[in-house]
């Protein structure tokens, strides 16, 4: 029996096979057929023949499909439209999944943003460090000349050159294209002639006229060719001009230096680049103002000299020239006043004594990171080590954030396993899915990036204090934004890559039946958690050890009084009134001791001197084996009581004894060097007076006392031999205050100072401050470790928090059933937390040995160091566990407290 409806359906199916016809067309054709059939029925056709006739009239399917399909062609061929609609779909789905899980999206974005912000700050720091002095023109061809010198066993490195070096290089060295010369100047007191008040300028240098051309410095006012030509002229930076004169254009104005020399301003230069060796320098005095500027003496090591080599010059060739300088120029100069000296005899003498003097170079761009601090350095240098440590920290921070991202994404992806299953069933291929998830992770990554820039912006001032820097975000640098965007994308793809492939791997049949939800990726997730916490534990241990060591150093019994000790510097400003000032200060009731000396028991660069014991003469001369290199400090009678040093044998210098001018006080280390005991050392005679020709009149110093060893160098070093001799001419006054009212004491001292030398600034500091400066590097390291430990812990906790939330949700039914069967909330909380505690425990076991090893390596740098005790590890482990319990328990308790009926009912 013919069935019209069935026949029409069957007929329509032919069209459905072809993608050309959309739903509307199919319906339209169906209606056409029905209309036609109705008409034919009205004409008396049977249903069957009416249908057959209508179908025949309608025609063949393939030709129609082809015709219809050609209608679609134009739009399909537009690939970009297709891609756009594809990606807009990805974005749509991404946005949906974000809004569906706001908590997860927040955790993910925020964690990644924190890591990125940290990474961004550290990258800026490293970029800043690596780009010191690169802004100068042809920086790759500019070199600074150095001297390495060893005399009497004391080795020193200088960043300066002798005065005649410049002329020699310009005249005779074929490799030199340009040369500029500075001259070291101590800090100077500056005032306008019409005023009284002096201002201290710490960063003043002499410079020749070439300095501006050499370093591409632009004069805002004045002529750079002539500005520093005449004696008593100066060029100052614009901010210095504003500081002293209140205007930028101070051309033609004058300044009085050290109350005696009048200098005229002939140029105003832009401020020095912040990351250059000249960064703090504000005042350049013309080189011709200095008497020794054209000196032919080779012992004038006060002239930092920079050369620009010709292009394509080999540094070795230039070094080869430098190696000849000593024999060709220096020794002929010395021969004029040392009778009998020849090149050969000086070489012979060097061989015997082990002395040497060598010229070499440091590349301009290596000064900041790849050179030690030499004498006469313009600004304190950093160390490539710091860059490595920061790179390490930054790398791990970002790694932590990525790991977090992967962990959370894979965990929450399980929730989407059904989505993946359905997409796959509907014909989505794996790469489409991968693209979808990568789009999502890139979006989150970009979102984090924006957040990270804001966080970095807010944190930058604090970071600058922490790292002792003045970094700015280079807003105007397009390259910066490009790199930022690219690294954000790369991070997104990297951290999204694993979850994407993980998700797209789901087998649709399994996930739709609900299998994969139980096991997927758990192993990898767990190991990532272990990894995160291992790093956190490592950082906690490091922070604790660094702080313990710094604390140990600061509180170690140093053998002298460092608290309540005020140091007044730059006594030169007093002229010949130093003694009067000292006596006046001594009268103040709150002052207990005052001493004059240039030597402080804090680390600084001090020279040593060669001593011989009486009788160590080998015939007519001293043999070099019996020479002892010992530091010698000039002190007065009040030095030992002021610093509260302990005399363990003999006595201190005393005004009663006129013979003390040839007296000598040793520390224990010197006694050990002499191979005797403190008691026996008293009365021994030593000499430094070995160069005189009439050996019988040689002057000896007699040991009158021995002081207990005290730490005058950093605790990185052992206590070395040290001697005191009685001598005046001090530049510092050491004042021990009797009570704690420091501000009153300082006021009184300042008042008295102003009475004696009105207008001069009083330059003072507390000795423990200067002492703390010594350990600035360690303190900074400690602070940096602490901040980033906190950050990494925070990120790890965020991740753990998210995982715990996920875990609790995944096991919601299980918890419900357990509760129904009588489990207590406490038991369930315990159970849920235990899973994570196991991971943290593994992390601790992994991290402790590594951190033990690393911190012992760091501590090995110190002669006086703490032992890393088990407490440090216990505390670190305890902290990690407490933090993880706090993080996890909130979620666990929340899950455990929920009414089981609610969980079990919902499906």
């Amino acid at each position, binding site marked *: 029996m013919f069935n019209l409806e069935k026949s029409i359906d069957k007929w329509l199916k032919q069209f459905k096979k072809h993608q050309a016809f959309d739903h509307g*067309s199919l319906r339209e*054709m169906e*209606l*056409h057929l029905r*209309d*036609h059939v109705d008409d034919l029925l009205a004409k008396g056709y049977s249903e069957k023949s009416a249908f057959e006739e209508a179908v025949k009239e309608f025609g*063949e399917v393939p030709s129609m499909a082809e015709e219809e399909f050609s*209608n679609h062609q134009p739009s399909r061929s537009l690939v970009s439209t297709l891609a756009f609609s594809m990606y807009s779909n990805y974005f749509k789905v991404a946005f949906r999944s974000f809004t569906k899980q706001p908590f997860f999206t927040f955790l993910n974005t925020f964690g990644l943003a924190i890591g990125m912000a940290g990474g961004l700050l550290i990258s800026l720091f490293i970029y800043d460090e690596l780009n010191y002095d690169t802004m100068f023109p042809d920086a790759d061809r500019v070199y600074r000349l150095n001297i390495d010198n060893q005399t009497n066993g004391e080795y020193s490195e200088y960043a300066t050159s002798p005065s005649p070096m410049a002329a020699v290089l310009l005249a005779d060295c074929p490799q030199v294209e340009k040369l500029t010369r500075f001259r070291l100047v101590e800090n100077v007191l500056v005032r306008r002639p019409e005023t009284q008040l002096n201002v201290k300028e710490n960063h003043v240098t002499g410079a020749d006229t070439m300095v501006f051309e050499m370093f591409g410095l632009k004069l805002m006012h004045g002529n750079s060719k002539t500005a520093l030509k005449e004696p008593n002229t100066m060029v100052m930076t614009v901010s210095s001009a504003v500081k002293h004169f209140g205007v930028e254009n101070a051309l033609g104005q004058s300044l009085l230096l050290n109350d005696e020399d009048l200098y005229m301003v002939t140029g105003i230069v832009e401020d020095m680049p912040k990351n250059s060796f000249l960064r703090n320098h504000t005042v350049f005095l013309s080189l011709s103002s200095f008497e020794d500027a054209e000196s032919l003496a080779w012992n004038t090591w006060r002239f930092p000299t920079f050369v620009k080599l010709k292009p394509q010059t080999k540094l070795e060739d230039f070094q080869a020239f430098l190696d000849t300088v000593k024999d060709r120029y220096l020794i002929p100069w010395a021969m004029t006043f040392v009778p009998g000296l020849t090149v050969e005899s000086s070489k012979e003498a060097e061989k015997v004594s082990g002395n040497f003097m060598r010229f070499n170079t440091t590349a301009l761009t290596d000064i900041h990171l790849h050179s030690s601090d030499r004498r006469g350095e313009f600004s304190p240098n950093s160390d490539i080590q710091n860059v490595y440590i920061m790179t390490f920290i930054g790398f791990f921070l970002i790694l932590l954030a990525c790991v977090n991202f992967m962990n959370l994404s894979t965990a929450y992806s399980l929730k989407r396993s059904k989505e993946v299953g359905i997409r796959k069933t509907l014909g989505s291929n794996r790469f489409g899915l991968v693209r979808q998830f990568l789009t999502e992770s890139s979006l989150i990554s970009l979102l984090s990036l924006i957040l990270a820039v804001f966080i970095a912006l807010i944190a930058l001032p604090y970071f600058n204090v922490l790292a002792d820097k003045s970094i700015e975000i280079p807003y105007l640098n397009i390259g910066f934004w490009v790199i930022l965007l690219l690294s954000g994308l790369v991070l997104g793809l990297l951290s999204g890559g694993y979850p994407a492939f993980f998700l797209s791997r789901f087998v649709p049949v399994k996930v739709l039946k609900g299998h994969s939800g139980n096991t997927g990726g758990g192993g990898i997730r767990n190991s990532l958690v272990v990894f995160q916490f291992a790093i956190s534990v490592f950082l906690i241990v490091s922070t604790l050890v660094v702080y313990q060591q710094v604390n140990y150093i600061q509180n170690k019994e140093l053998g002298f009084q460092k608290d309540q000790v005020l140091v007044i510097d730059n006594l030169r400003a007093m002229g010949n009134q130093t003694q009067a000032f000292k006596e006046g200060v001594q009268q103040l009731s709150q002052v207990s001791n005052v001493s004059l000396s240039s030597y402080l028991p804090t680390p600084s660069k001090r020279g040593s001197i060669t001593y011989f014991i009486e009788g160590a003469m080998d015939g007519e001369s001293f043999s070099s084996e019996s020479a002892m290199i010992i530091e010698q400090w000039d002190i007065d009678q009040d030095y030992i009581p002021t610093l509260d040093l302990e005399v363990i044998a003999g006595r201190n210098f005393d005004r009663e004894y006129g013979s003390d001018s040839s007296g000598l006080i040793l520390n224990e280390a010197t006694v050990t060097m002499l191979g005797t005991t403190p008691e026996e050392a008293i009365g021994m005679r030593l000499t430094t007076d070995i160069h005189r020709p009439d050996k019988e009149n040689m002057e000896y110093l007699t040991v009158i006392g021995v002081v207990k060893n005290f730490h005058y160098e950093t605790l990185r070093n052992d206590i070395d031999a040290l001697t005191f001799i009685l001598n005046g001419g001090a530049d510092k006054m050491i004042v021990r205050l009797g009570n704690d009212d420091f501000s009153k004491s300082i006021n009184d001292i300042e008042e008295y100072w102003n009475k004696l030398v009105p207008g001069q600034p009083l330059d003072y500091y507390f000795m423990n401050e200067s002492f703390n400066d010594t350990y600035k590097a360690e303190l900074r390291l400690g602070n940096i470790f602490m901040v980033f430990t906190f950050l990494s812990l925070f990120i790890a906790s965020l991740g753990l928090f998210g995982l715990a939330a996920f875990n609790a949700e995944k096991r919601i039914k299980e918890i419900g059933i357990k509760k129904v069967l009588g489990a207590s909330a406490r038991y369930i909380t315990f159970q849920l937390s235990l899973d994570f505690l196991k991971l943290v425990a593994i992390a601790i076991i992994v991290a402790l040995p590594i951190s033990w090893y690393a911190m012992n390596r760091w501590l090995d740098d110190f002669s006086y160091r703490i032992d890393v005790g088990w407490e440090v590890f216990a505390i670190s482990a305890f902290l990690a566990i407490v933090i993880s319990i706090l993080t996890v328990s909130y979620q666990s308790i929340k899950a455990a407290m929920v009414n089981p009926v609610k969980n079990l009912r919902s499906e």
Partner: protein
Amino acid sequence: MISKNLTAASTKPIILGILKQGNSYGYLIIKKIKELSGGKMKYSDGMLYPVLHRLEKEGLIISTWVMEDDSVRPRKYYEITEAGKKELIQEQAQWSEVNAVLNAIWTTQ
């Protein structure tokens, strides 16, 4: 019987011409063509729809689904647009020219 090619070529002006007389739907359009040609234009009904869809895409006609009160089925009604009317004028001119040429040739023979 009018050849297949010529039928195909003339479909566009015919459809536009019919629609100019008033809105209509597929089945009615084909019925009208058959009536007018006295069955001499051999059409398979289905071929009309791709053409309608193409014309719609070109913006010469627009369509709306309408449920008429007196009918059991909805219909997809097509309506000629202003652009369609202009196109029809051009088509008419072209066909007239072809016609004129043919007439000129044949009257001289």
